[in-house]
């Protein structure tokens, strides 16, 4: 039984990476269209990945530098696999038996921290600048996200993702986006921070610090990071689907809901300039946290 689960999980992982790259291509296409230009093919990310993967030479700055992409990929894949795609279905609930929401929240950091250490060993000043900015901004967007997650946990009296999804069954109105609108609002705003999309594009900041942390990475290393980041993005979409949109009853619904969630940061990112770091941290600690607090107090009073 365990081996079957692992095999299906592996398939789900490959599907996740492909879906992530596809969504990346779609987002580049939509961004291009919004800038009134044709933009690359939808499959551009696949081609880029393949080109990077088959590059002939690469450089390495040390052991930690060498291992960082593996950390990134494993972190992304792990996060993806801990989130069940379809709750209840033995083939599509991945490794959700491995841990609950608390495990997932700490797991999300593993990929970033591993990559951060590798990039820092490259010796290029851009890397630590990017990483410190990323971590500081994470301290920013983690507050609203934590508040909304705690609201859900207390409301559904469970910390496992399946429990939260089961609590939302029975019609659209039971979804948490409607039962706890403010918490959902807080979470979706912090999603912008998590994705590092434009108003909060402080980590990779192409104009200022030339792609930030992965400055010194090249060829195959970069392909691992690239795939890790895209599967990490899909994992977040899945998580938000399960937490706020009532999870998916079958694979089709999973695609539809994740695509909707995917569109939300995309539209924001193309119309906003970039925040400075202190502005983004203070923004996250004021508006979305306030929304979250409203729901938190509501839960506290109701209990």
């Amino acid at each position, binding site marked *: 039984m365990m081996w079957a689960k692992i095999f299906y999980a592996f398939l789900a992982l490959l599907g996740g990476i492909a879906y992530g790259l596809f969504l990346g291509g779609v987002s*580049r296409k939509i961004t*291009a269209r919004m*800038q*009134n*230009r*044709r*933009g*690359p*093919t939808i499959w*551009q990310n696949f*081609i*880029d990945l*393949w*080109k990077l993967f*088959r*590059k*002939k*030479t*690469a*450089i390495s700055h040390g052991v930690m530098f060498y291992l960082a992409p593996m950390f990134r990929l494993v972190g992304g894949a792990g996060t993806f696999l801990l989130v069940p795609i379809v709750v209840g279905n033995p083939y599509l609930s991945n490794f959700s038996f491995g841990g609950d929401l608390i495990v997932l929240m700490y797991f999300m950091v593993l990929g970033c921290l591993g990559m951060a250490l590798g990039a820092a060993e490259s010796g290029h000043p851009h890397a630590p600048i990017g990483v410190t900015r990323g971590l500081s901004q994470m301290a920013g967007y983690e507050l609203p996200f934590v508040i909304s997650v705690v609201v859900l946990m207390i409301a559904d009296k469970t910390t496992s993702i399946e429990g939260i999804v089961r609590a939302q069954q029975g019609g659209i109105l039971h979804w948490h986006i409607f039962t706890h609108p403010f918490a959902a609002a807080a979470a979706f705003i912090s999603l912008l921070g998590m994705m590092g999309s434009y108003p909060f594009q402080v980590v990779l900041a*192409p104009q200022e610090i*030339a*792609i930030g942390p*992965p*400055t*010194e*990475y*090249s*060829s195959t290393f*970069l392909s691992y990071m690239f795939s890790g980041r895209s599967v990490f993005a899909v994992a977040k979409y899945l998580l938000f689907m399960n937490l706020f949109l009532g999870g998916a009853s079958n694979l089709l619904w999973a695609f539809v809901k994740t695509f909707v969630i995917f569109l939300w940061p995309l539209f924001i990112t193309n119309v906003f300039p970039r925040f400075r770091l202190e502005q983004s941290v203070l923004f996250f600690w004021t508006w979305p946290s306030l929304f979250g607090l409203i729901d938190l107090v509501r839960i506290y009073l109701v209990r």
Partner: protein
Amino acid sequence: MGKDKNYFLNEKPEKMTYGGVFRKINDWARARSLWVVAYGTGCGSIELRPTFTSRFDAERLGMRMVGTPRQADVLIISGYLTVKTLKRVIRVYEQMQSPKYVVALGACPINGGMYYDSYNAINRLDLYLPVDVWITGCMPRPEAILAGFKRLQGLIDSGKADGWKKYIENLDWYRENQRKIIKNWRMPNYNW
């Protein structure tokens, strides 16, 4: 590690095979996703801006500007090169990972152009770097540049864009030419 130790690639990189079953697919992918290093060396780099933005959109060809030479495939030499800029261009070229390609814009890299008799500008670029595609014109317009990129994609597809292999194979010839005009690789510290 002395202060001015020379950090250049002096030892010769060993030969690399360039064939195999997937060569056609790899070359197809390499042609369709060319990442250009954002390093405007001369007056032509102003032409690259419209090429890569909405008006002419080189992203249609899968091309994207990247910040560091480590991640780039294509180095665009966009104008005359003085001894000073040549030093940096060679260092950037060596930091790029192969397979890498060089596209030269304008007349000056070809034969020195209007600065043919300048005491500073070099006359022929391919003495120092292997150039895959020349795009002539005293700064070609974006349409010409896009045509040049299409030609580069064709070369890559057909496997003939092997400038980087030539550079590795006869590195000594290139080094000897470079040493003729570059005495030492220590660069002054411009902190004024």
